[in-house]
């Protein structure tokens, strides 16, 4: 009896030890993040304001802003989303609902999973060769957006497949049993029921794309831009213009990098402020993804 009590005491002590070790490990991560954020905020917060968002970069740190950077980031992301969403979702649907299960689709599947792990700079090189040199898109918003689209395409495909796989087979059978074709089943059931999961994947992909620097530098984004891309609207018919697609650009992380590499302390503050903006953008997008997932989970539970 004494023996057992002793054993229990020892195991309980080990329990206690691990609880402390686990707590400390968690705190290390949290504390680091907290320090980083506080530091960033202390440095950058005073710089945030309307003028910071509405000004071009400048030689004078007080006058410099992120106008061209956030507009560039926004437009690049627009191109990325327009390319990656239709292609990625269509590929995901095809692989799950249409393609047979054989060695070829297995190889494709493994390759897509591998593509998600390819370093982003490699996508930059690919985009440089294909979009800049071969298609002659130039060092433009279009090239940057497509480079990032390549980068997040595997993520979008995988998110789509995961979301589709969560739909129980009984739903497909119910649809087919009523005489539906494959496309009707996809259109009325597969796409609507997987939208939550797909959107979540897309937004997380985009929030990764917005912070990417390497592929954007590789395709030749500029680091100092004091003008905006051409307007998407024109005064003549058809009133919209796609000229902006071929304009040079910069993005948030490159603007940050540019400021960080300057010797003056004031520019470091600008970098911190831009960092806050970038982080907020990412957090907002991730928050939105969580919200969407929550909304859809509430409506559709299998």
């Amino acid at each position, binding site marked *: 009896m004494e023996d057992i009590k002793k054993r229990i005491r020892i195991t309980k002590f080990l329990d206690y030890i691990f609880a402390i070790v686990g707590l400390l490990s968690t705190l290390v991560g949290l504390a680091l993040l907290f320090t980083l954020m506080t530091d960033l905020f202390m440095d950058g917060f005073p710089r945030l304001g309307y003028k910071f968002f509405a000004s071009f970069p400048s030689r004078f740190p007080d006058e410099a802003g992120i106008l061209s950077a956030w507009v560039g980031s926004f437009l690049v992301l627009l191109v990325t989303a327009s390319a990656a969403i239709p292609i990625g979702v269509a590929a995901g649907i095809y692989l799950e609902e249409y393609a047979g299960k054989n060695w070829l689709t297995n190889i494709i599947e493994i390759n897509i999973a591998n593509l998600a792990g390819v370093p982003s700079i490699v996508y930059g090189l690919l985009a440089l060769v294909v979009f800049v040199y071969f298609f002659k898109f130039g060092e433009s918003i279009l090239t940057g957006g497509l480079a990032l689209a390549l980068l997040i395409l595997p993520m979008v495909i995988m998110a789509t497949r995961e979301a589709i796989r969560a739909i*129980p087979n*009984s*739903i497909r059978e*119910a649809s087919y*049993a*009523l005489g539906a074709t494959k496309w009707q089943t996809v259109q*009325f059931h597969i796409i609507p029921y997987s939208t939550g999961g797909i959107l979540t994947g897309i937004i997380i992909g985009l929030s990764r794309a917005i912070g990417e620097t390497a592929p954007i530098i590789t395709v030749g984004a500029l680091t100092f831009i004091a003008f905006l891309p051409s307007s998407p609207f024109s005064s003549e018919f058809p009133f919209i213009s796609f000229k902006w697609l071929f304009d040079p650009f910069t993005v948030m992380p490159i603007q940050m990098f540019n400021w960080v590499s300057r010797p003056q302390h004031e520019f470091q503050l600008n970098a911190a402020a831009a960092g806050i903006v970038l982080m907020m953008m990412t957090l907002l997008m991730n928050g939105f993804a969580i919200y969407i997932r929550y909304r859809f989970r509430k409506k559709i539970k299998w």
Partner: protein
Amino acid sequence: MVKELKAEVKKLNFYYGRVQALKEINLPIERRKVSALIGPSGCGKTTFLRCFNRMHDLYPHNRYEGEIILHPDNVNIISPQMDPIEVRMQISMVFQKPNPFPKSIYENVAYGLRVRGVSKREVLDEKVEKSLRGAVLWDEVKDRLNHLAFDLSGGQQQRLCIARALATNPRILLFDEPTSALDPTATLKIEELIVELKNEVTIIIVTHNMQQAARVSDYTAFMYLGEIVEYDKTDRIFTAPSNKLTEEYITGRFG
């Protein structure tokens, strides 16, 4: 009264890849009657049922041999020339577990019509009401047709699935153990409904519950190891089976 046949199964063989699941099945399906398929687990009754609306075509490596002739058109619905979608347009199915779509009650019932290109609101409204009445669900849901089908109880969901299958005026309605996931009260309602429905539609039901077969069906086929051992009027099968195996199964000595 002369028997009127809705369908005739002739020398049906079915293979999952190399495994033969159904062997030389011959069976008449009487018009506007309930035919029950009974037998121990794995005897092929569900496999057989799913031949009628070509569900096996959804998965690779499945193969049919023989004929299922649908009357009065005299077409073989399992011939490779026959489009499975055309077959499913005429032969509906209710599954083991209620599987409503995560849509409104209304949209669940209307789906089969939408698939057929019906989009006029008045036609849909009328058909939805008629089908829900046919499935004895109308009074329970008429005030909340826009609610999600998942809000209904299990038994109501299954009746919704029956309404969904009825909406397209099927010529044969297939039931695959429709009450195995339901409680006794809900089961009773479904059984009453099946007896009611045979006035309008030919029904084939798979069940592992022998009392259920005895209660709802007019004809019963006893299956064992992929073959039909005995087929007769239900009361004959349950009172005076001619095959020893059938007798042993219905008296609960095996299976």
